[in-house]
């Protein structure tokens, strides 16, 4: 899609109308610029400018009256909670993405396996978590995990087990927020993989079957290589979104117990808006930038490579 814009426009044919075309070309770039102007304005005013502005905010003191340079960052480095947030954000994002990818892959396979006429129905059912606004579905999870009324604990008790403190201790709480994240995100992977599976030419499987390849070998040597790009891109995108996640943690645990489920976004909200310390909050969110930069580099490389291929 993007390569279309990168590639030179091929309107230069049609020699007979060259002069009128040239006039139009001149006008064309102006029109095009104006057509893209709202987009440019929006991005520069409401994305790029605030992104830069947060850099500036991060260098001010709490009451935003004085320039303190790297003061906020050095302060953060002395905070135990900050390092825990760094650690938790990484655990949260990486585990969640790995499981989303795995579950998505497995489910996509099963859906792909069954007769085509039933696929639509299953696909629809399995996409539900992705369609419900996360804020709403998190409420259901919150109620399922409730300390006094947990429906899961009721089932566990039915089989004679001890109640699980779903959001009560650090490990279970981390497990719970990651579980919810996987639940919301896995269908997206499923859909992407399903689309990719459909684009793998059937002949490749037939050839593999003739060579006597086992079920596992077919996945390993045919499916996975064909899907590599999509797996990479989907995982990368999901990593960014998960890393910056806010609503799930905010609604499920609000960061507790003892701050151990905070990720960058929720902690930034806590210190920035609830703690009335906007500069410190901005500094916290700025720590997402290195990760995003790495992602950006990968994606840019991918785009340019694809651009060169075409």
């Amino acid at each position, binding site marked *: 899609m993007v390569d279309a814009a990168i590639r030179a426009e091929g309107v230069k044919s049609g020699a007979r109308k060259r002069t009128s075309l040239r006039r139009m070309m001149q006008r064309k770039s102006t029109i095009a610029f104006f057509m893209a102007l709202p987009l440019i304005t929006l991005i520069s005013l409401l994305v790029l400018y605030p992104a830069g502005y947060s850099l500036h905010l991060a260098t001010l*003191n709490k009451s935003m009256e004085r320039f303190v340079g790297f003061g906020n960052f050095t302060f953060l480095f002395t*905070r*135990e909670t900050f390092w825990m947030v760094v650690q938790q954000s990484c655990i949260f994002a990486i585990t969640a993405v790995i499981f989303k990818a795995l579950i998505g892959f497995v489910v996509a396979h099963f859906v792909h396996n069954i007769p085509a006429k039933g696929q639509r129905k299953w696909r629809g059912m399995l996409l539900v978590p992705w369609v419900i606004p996360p804020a709403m579905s998190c409420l259901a999870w919150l109620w399922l995990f409730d300390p*006094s009324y947990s429906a899961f604990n009721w089932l566990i008790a039915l089989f004679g087990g001890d109640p699980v403190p779903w959001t*009560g*201790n650090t490990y279970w709480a981390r497990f719970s927020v990651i579980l919810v994240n996987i639940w919301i995100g896995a269908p997206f992977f499923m859909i992407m993989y399903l689309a990719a599976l459909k684009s793998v030419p059937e002949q490749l499987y037939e050839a593999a079957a003739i060579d006597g390849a086992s079920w596992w070998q077919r996945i390993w040597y045919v499916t996975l290589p064909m899907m590599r790009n999509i797996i990479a891109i989907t995982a990368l995108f999901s990593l960014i979104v998960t890393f910056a996640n806010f609503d799930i943690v905010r609604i499920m645990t609000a960061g*507790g117990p*003892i701050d151990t489920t905070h990720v960058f976004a929720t902690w930034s909200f806590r210190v920035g808006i*609830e*703690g009335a310390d906007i500069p410190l909050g901005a500094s916290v969110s700025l720590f997402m930038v290195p990760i995003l930069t790495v992602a950006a580099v990968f994606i840019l490389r991918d785009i340019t490579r694809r651009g060169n291929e075409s």
Partner: protein
Amino acid sequence: MQKPRLSRRQFVATTAAASAVMIAAPFVRGARAAGKLAIGFWDHWVPGANDTLTKLVNDWAAKEKVEVSIDYITSQGNKNRLTIAAEALAKSGHDIFAFPTWEPQAYSKYLEPVSDVMEPLIKQHGQVNATVEYLGRADGKWIAVPATVGSQIKGPCSRIDLMKKLAGVDVQALYPAGGPPKADAWTLDAFLKAAEACHKAGASFGIGLGITSDSVDTAGAIFHSFGAALVDKGGKIQAKSDPVRQALDYLKKLAAVLPPDAPAWDDASNNKWLISGKGALIMNPPSAWAVAKRDAPQVAEQCWTHGMPAGPKGRYAPFLPYFWGVWNFGKNKPAAKSLLAALSTREAAEKMVAASGGYDLPSFAKLTDFKTWAEEGPPKGTLYHYPNPHNHQILSVAAAPAPPKIAAQIYTQGVQTKMVVRHLQGEAMEKTLAWAESECEGFMRT
């Protein structure tokens, strides 16, 4: 500009007069005010309580020909505090706002001084307690009026039957309805013993260890009972002191017999604990009982609200006042002050207390004898001791007496409950104290 503007002196004179006079004397509209007033009140947890407040305001508005609009803003998820922060930053919004405990101090530079409203009220209704002074005064001036609505004592609400059967404690004998408490034996040790007995019998005390106010208040009151303060009045950090060690040690023993997920509890969890019939005691104003009355009447009949256990340094109860404050960027300050005075009359307070089923507490000494508390039930007299009528406990707020801006951070970050959870989960005492010390250092940021 032709209309006469109410001068400060006149205004003081008006409010100083008896409330009846206050209501009778029509409020004179300011020239710029155009008679509009936007109010952000706290969204009450007791069903129906908002309506009475709305009616009180509307009655005043009709009399004074002021056009009012009221927003009820919940404190769930700190929504009201977010709104306050947003309005302070944008320097616009409501005229009057219901400020939770710490907010008047945090936003004192945006608040209109209200000493001219407060001084006559104190003269009329009696003194306010030290906690209200600590939270509501800055630079020698009153910055907000303690609100009846939302102010609360978070004492124990016990199950009469379970406490008697499992722990051998007769709470009705300790705190008889209609008379002074006979609670000398009701100490922190007795409390812990009862908690252990109930836990063993499967009806743990429902005390949270989260970072919302119910949890923080209980821990804070117990800290006070040991004379423990993380930061002292002068702003010096005292985390590594013996009273703090004793308090932490006690709380650890207590926490061991609380529900396992207490660290994740919020202000609703303890209510659910009580209503579900699982617990023998929670620390909460009477809203939990009020909801139980609706949804689980057999539980409500066994509830008794009473006083806190005493510690080595006294009997402290968590008191959490709400304040009504006037933004100094508001456009109709005289009207706002007039409304605050009108809402602080004895009659108005009594109506609010009745509407909230006894939940709301006026902060003035002479306003603790309304019949609502004596008569609410079942069981009759369950709220008699709620407003602390015999003054046998010291009303306090967690993290006091640190300078309010630091105390507010200690409170909102739940440092005390986090200390308990850390220590409970096996962290060494001194390590926990070092952590608390470093957190408090962080709060000194300007």
